[in-house]
């Protein structure tokens, strides 16, 4: 229980951090971390299918797509 609470706390912190980072790559990494924690939470909530999907799609591919997009545009929020 405490473990989950800590995870949720970290997740919220990461999400807030993602909104504050000026470097978009950092923001995206924070976003990926949020996804990863979500995936773990899904596992705790007895949803292994969803956890797998979130890990593969949310944390993996989404991040890749974000990073490609940032490479094509600009890295720093102005």
């Amino acid at each position, binding site marked *: *229980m405490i473990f*989950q*609470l800590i995870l*949720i706390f970290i*997740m*919220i912190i990461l*999400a*807030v951090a*993602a*909104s504050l980072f000026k470097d*978009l790559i950092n*923001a*995206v990494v924070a*976003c990926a971390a*949020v*996804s990863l924690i*979500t995936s773990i*939470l*899904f596992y705790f*909530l*007895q*949803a*292994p*299918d*969803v956890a797998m*999907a*979130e890990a593969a*799609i*949310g944390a993996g*591919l*989404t991040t890749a*797509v*974000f990073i*490609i*997009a*940032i490479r*094509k*545009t*600009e890295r720093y*929020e*102005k």
Partner: protein
Amino acid sequence: MSGIYNWMYYIASGGLILIGLYIVLVKTNLIKIVIGLNFIDTGINILLICIGYVRGRTAPIFSRPGISPANVVDPVPQALVLTAIVIGVAVLALALSIVIKVYQHNKTLNVTKIKGLKW
């Protein structure tokens, strides 16, 4: 203390949704806004899953013997979330491609400067 345990997942999902909305409302960078949309999606997914969760039960997979049907969580939200995740990534990919195009045309990602269409 049990109050926090009952509410922590709701706080997680609601918090993610609200942070996402805040990003959409306030941040001017397009990629940030897309990140915000992604947060909203994630928040809703958590919401759906914890709606289906029943304390003390296991995943609805009967591959091992000894799992009684009365002892599993709701499978429907999990199915819905699978769908929602895929839809989310689809929207996200499309959004980023459009963002790339917008950047090519405007040379900026700042939405306050992309105002070719107004009134």
